[in-house]
């Protein structure tokens, strides 16, 4: 067991999978000698050589389609897209090539590629470098979408993603890369599609992913100070959604707050809210509270950006609303 940063945990997962399987290759912008702008692929060029760790031109649409083509021919490419804001450039390849290929071709190919990217606001990176576009990728059948909050999950899920026969969109968060956590040394891959209860409680269920899990846990702490014991679910996988864990918790607490860092309208949290209200209709004692990013392009100036983002305070307030 080591204490690692989230970026280091990802780096370890890449290293271990590359050592284990010679068909695992990395590509993306500035990922080779420089090790990636967030240093997730640090030292891997030196360890595995230029044929397996490749810098690319700035050509996200083509890179994504290349992952489709390379993976169907036997490589296991891991593509880094520098910012989640650039996912729209990848979407044609995801929606029109990756999504249909396995089903429409009746299983003739596997598409074992991973598209890693990072999103999230709070760093003053502005409207084009701060978004979480979870909803856009989670909407696409045939893909899996993973969004870990903690270093241990980051490592174990990235390993699973690399071994998976389907395309996996792996969503990281710029403000989590430096966060520390215990990471088991020889952890096996963690199954994709399983949420995790990261805090138990009986009064209300807080459901989040990625950095919003940290905010939800902080909210739970505040609520506990007021005698309210919140259960916190870290989704870890956004598609396929682990409804079993979610519904069981809501049937126990009878209340739910759902949070996603993307835009609220038609966002990922709408799926959570809808799924819960549809399946747990008779168990719910209060309307599901849904929190997301303000429906605006993300502003740069600190007070504006802060006002746009969901946070622990807003989550705690929403939880209290379910208890009124």
């Amino acid at each position: 067991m080591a204490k690692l940063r989230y970026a280091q945990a990802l780096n370890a997962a890449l290293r271990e999978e590359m050592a284990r399987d010679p068909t695992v290759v990395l590509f993306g912008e500035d990922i080779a000698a420089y090790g990636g702008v967030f240093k997730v692929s640090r030292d891997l060029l030196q360890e595995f050589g230029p044929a397996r760790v490749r810098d690319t031109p700035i050509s996200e649409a083509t890179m994504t389609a290349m992952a489709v083509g390379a993976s169907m021919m036997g490589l296991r490419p891991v593509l880094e897209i520098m910012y989640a804001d650039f996912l729209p450039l990848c979407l044609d390849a995801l929606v029109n090539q990756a999504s249909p290929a396995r089903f429409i071709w009746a299983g003739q190919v596997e598409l074992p590629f991973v598209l890693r990217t990072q999103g999230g606001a709070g760093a003053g990176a502005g409207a084009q470098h701060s978004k979480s576009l979870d909803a856009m990728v989670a909407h696409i059948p045939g893909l899996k979408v993973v969004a870990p909050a903690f270093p241990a999950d980051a490592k174990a899920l990235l390993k699973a993603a690399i071994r998976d026969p389907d395309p996996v969109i792996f969503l990281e968060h710029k403000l989590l890369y430096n966060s520390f956590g215990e990471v088991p040394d020889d952890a096996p891959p963690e199954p994709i599609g399983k949420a995790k209860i990261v805090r138990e409680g009986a009064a209300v269920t807080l459901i989040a992913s990625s950095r919003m899990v940290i905010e939800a846990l902080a909210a739970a702490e505040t609520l506990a100070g007021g005698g309210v014991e919140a259960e916190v679910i870290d989704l870890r996988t956004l598609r396929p959604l682990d409804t079993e864990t979610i519904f069981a918790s809501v049937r126990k607490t009878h209340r739910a707050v759902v949070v996603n860092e993307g835009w609220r309208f038609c966002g990922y949290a709408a799926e959570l809210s809808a799924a819960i209200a549809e399946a747990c209709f008779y168990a719910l004692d209060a309307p599901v509270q849904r929190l997301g990013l303000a429906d605006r392009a993300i502003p740069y100036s600190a007070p504006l950006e802060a006002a746009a983002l969901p946070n622990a305070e807003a989550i705690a307030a929403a939880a209290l609303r379910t208890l009124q």
Partner: protein
Amino acid sequence: MSASPPAPGDPALLETLFARMVEVRFLEEGLRAAHKAGQTRGPLHCCDGQEAVGVGATAALAPGDVVTSTHRGHAHYLGRGLSLERVLGEIFGRASGYCQGRAGHMLIADRARGMLGGNAIVGGGIPVAVGQAWALQALNTGAVALSFFGDGAAQTGVCHESMNIAALWRLPVIFLCEHNEYGLTVAASQQSAVRDIAVRAQGYAMPGVVVDGNDVLAVRSATAEAAARARAGEGPTLIEAKTYRMTGFSTSDMGGYQSREEMAAWAPRDPIERAAAALGPAFAPRRAEMEAQLRARVEAAFAAALAAPFPDAGDLLLPEYRHA
């Protein structure tokens, strides 16, 4: 590009390719009739007049090579040796089709014969082929990826990105532009700032070759040369095959934009007639015999395909990540 008959070269080979072109023509004749009879769904894209490109280029490939096709893929499919009956099964949406009826006419794939695959996103196959070529290179297969695309597709962003990356990485890919003078209804002169797409190869420091696309042997040898370069590690080649779409863009074309003069000028360059001419007058009786056989074969394939059952709607109830 003259209308003179090609030098016969290897007459046995030319006869084989002649037969393949005729098979494509007969297939499309049958399809047009089937479409009128309401046996197919959606518009069908025929390649009358362009058969020499698909047939000639695929004739230069080896079994391990892989092809990405377009919405106009009949010559590519048959050139690559796909079964008439299973191609037709797919077009008729039957369980016997290459993709169990899920793909339809524009997206046919046959992994075993390296057809991966048809594509109805214009330009969509180009970057997929670059990814395939990357895998073929990284896995030391000695194989090449050939990407068919149109003059319209040459204007897409991914075409540029793909050529740049393929040239930079010296990937074993052949970019085969079928210049048939139209992208749907708009003339190439209204879509491309240059007449010869091949000129753009200079922008990627790769060879750009213009070939008479109605001369099946010329297409074959240009492709063979490009494949040899690719296998030798010398990287990609852009081949521009000048040809002409003798009918509408699809069975739903309402016409009116291809001038009578233009069509008349191209009529004598029909690649099938040119191949026949090159085979000389002695070929005539043999031709009649071949055509009778081919027609019987195509008719039998239609009958078999139309007799096959439709897939079961229960396919859709499979779990999302189980495709077969």
